[in-house]
């Protein structure tokens, strides 16, 4: 009589554990969404299994790959001179040779500076890295030596810094934009504070910073001012966050939103010119090429859009027999790049897709999983 009772109680106690195991916890393993960059006919991309690969665009074959130890990559590789730079989620910055992918230096040599999520920027032989420890690090591009590190700016920095003149601008999840000296990393006199946190990395056009916020607005902030120039939408908030960094061209801001829409906004006034519904959240920033706007929905659909009118055409996958199939049969979250009429997209199926804009079609793809 007693034993079944005890077993029953054990079962009751274990039930939550079993149920929690059955239902998704909501905690996902970091996989990374590194983007692509093209340099001298070579495509550099971070993969979902923690490697950087170099692919010859003419032969569509892998030149080399470099595997990091058990980490994800969220930063898009940056090519400068004969090196390619990558920041890892395990909190290290690597410089690899572009020719053979051999490690030139790593910072820090031991330990970590905190997960690197935002893509670093390179200028004046210095690479500027924002880290999850809340600091910005400035490293020498040749030797990887630390030039300076800023004081902690926030609990964590997941956005990319942006440069204008000799100043580095950083946005934070707690709603600040900070201006730092590129020479010393010291905070300069101006900073901006918003009630809501900033979700996207900042973009500078003229003397104005554009960036998305968790309060479902896109902000325009004039450098030096303590109040925002405008917030878009002006009346009620958008349907979700402006997660991707906007792009600005000829006085128009193109901002993708997680509410599935791409908005064209007058940069000076914040007035909406047109909107395009991509049917699925827009996670990657749009790109401009040959006076055409390219935008990708998370579902895999890629669109070519007239930046003046907002009219669109969907990219087709000629390999698919289904006419309703998405442009790419995988999710798109990583930033993509445009180069000589082609778009290079690393999708969540760990494949690289190359889209010919004139043909409005995917022309080839290559797996990034194995060499």
């Amino acid at each position, binding site marked *: 009589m007693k034993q079944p009772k005890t077993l029953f109680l054990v079962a*009751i106690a274990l039930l939550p554990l079993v149920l929690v195991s059955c*239902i998704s916890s*909501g*905690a*996902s393993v970091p996989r990374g969404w590194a983007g692509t960059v093209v340099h001298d006919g070579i495509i550099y991309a971070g993969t979902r299994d923690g490697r950087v690969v170099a692919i010859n665009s003419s032969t569509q074959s892998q030149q080399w790959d470099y595997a990091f130890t058990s980490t994800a990559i969220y930063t898009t590789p940056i090519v400068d001179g004969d090196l390619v730079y990558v920041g890892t989620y395990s909190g290290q910055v690597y410089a690899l040779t572009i020719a053979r992918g051999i490690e030139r230096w790593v910072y820090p040599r031991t330990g970590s500076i905190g997960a690197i999520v935002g893509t670093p920027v390179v200028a004046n032989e210095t690479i500027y890295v924002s880290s999850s420890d809340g600091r910005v690090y400035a490293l020498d591009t040749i030797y990887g030596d630390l030039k300076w590190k800023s004081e902690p700016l926030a609990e964590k920095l997941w956005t990319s810094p942006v440069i204008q003149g000799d100043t580095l601008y950083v946005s934070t999840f707690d709603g600040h934009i900070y201006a730092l000296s590129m020479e010393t990393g010291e905070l300069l006199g101006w900073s901006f504070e918003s009630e809501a946190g900033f979700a996207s990395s900042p973009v500078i056009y003229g003397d104005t910073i554009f960036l998305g916020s968790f309060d479902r607005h896109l902000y325009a902030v004039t450098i030096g001012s303590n109040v925002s120039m405008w917030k878009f939408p002006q009346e009620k*908030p958008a*349907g*979700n*966050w402006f997660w991707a960094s906007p792009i600005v061209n000829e006085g128009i801001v193109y901002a993708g939103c997680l509410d599935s829409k791409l908005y064209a906004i007058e940069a000076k006034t914040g007035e909406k010119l047109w909107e395009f519904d991509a049917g699925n959240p827009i996670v990657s920033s749009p790109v401009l090429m040959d006076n055409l706007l390219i935008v990708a929905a998370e579902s895999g659909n890629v669109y070519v859009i007239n930046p003046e009118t907002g009219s669109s055409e969907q990219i087709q996958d000629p390999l698919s027999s289904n006419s309703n199939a998405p442009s790419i049969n995988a999710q798109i979250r990583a930033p993509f790049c445009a180069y000589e009429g082609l778009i290079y997209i690393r999708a969540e199926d760990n494949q690289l897709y190359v889209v010919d804009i004139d043909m409005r079609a995917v022309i080839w793809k290559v797996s990034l999983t194995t060499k």
Partner: protein
Amino acid sequence: MSPGDVWYLIIGNPVLNVLVALSHILGGSFGLAIIVLTVIIRLISWPLTKRQLNSTKALQDMQPKIQELQKKYGKNQQKLQQEMMKLYKEAGVNPLGCLWPMLIQFPIWIALYQAIMRALATTPENLLDLAQRLYSWDIVSQAIPLNSHFLGLDLGSQGNLILAIIVGGTMWVQQKMTQAPAVDPRQESTSRMMLLMMPLMFGFLTLMFPSGLALYWAVSNIIGIITQYFVTGGWGYLKFRSPFQSTPVKGK
């Protein structure tokens, strides 16, 4: 719509959004939000809790009669079960009634566990996923991202030993207050094991789950102790020392 979608629509997402909204109302403190949500859940489940306490008390009061039946029909298990059920029916007591409040809380625990993991968005993927689960309330969007630190705890991390001791300790006190004294050495041994098993198990679970969920368990236990104190009128059997404690159990 998959069962998972239904779960998030009905339980998962509402708990997540209430937790995030509470966090904003309470000055950005996620820990305080968990505590207030615990109090709300305990208030909602109060009718069930009261029924559980009454059932427990009634079962305790019936112990002498049950002992009598065991002596009388000890050799005829079927008859014993029948007589016991008859006794329960006459007294209007459901012997499993005390388990319902615990079972009802399981979905809440799971939803809270998921809400904590999702709301704290420890990875970039979690943060992106969170965007699709939040309601379009201003109070929710203004709360993101949440501060995971509370009273020196990182609510998203696991393995906090002090919390494990508090959860196990408070659970032991709560159980000890209600556990009727044993009538023979063999029953004493089983009772002692049961009294230790649940606190040890939850202490162990605390080490495996995020501190935010352990905070919920600890606060929930403390509220349970206070409620029990006032409903049953005192500390119950907490200070009771069994006369069989030093008696070696036959067969061991």
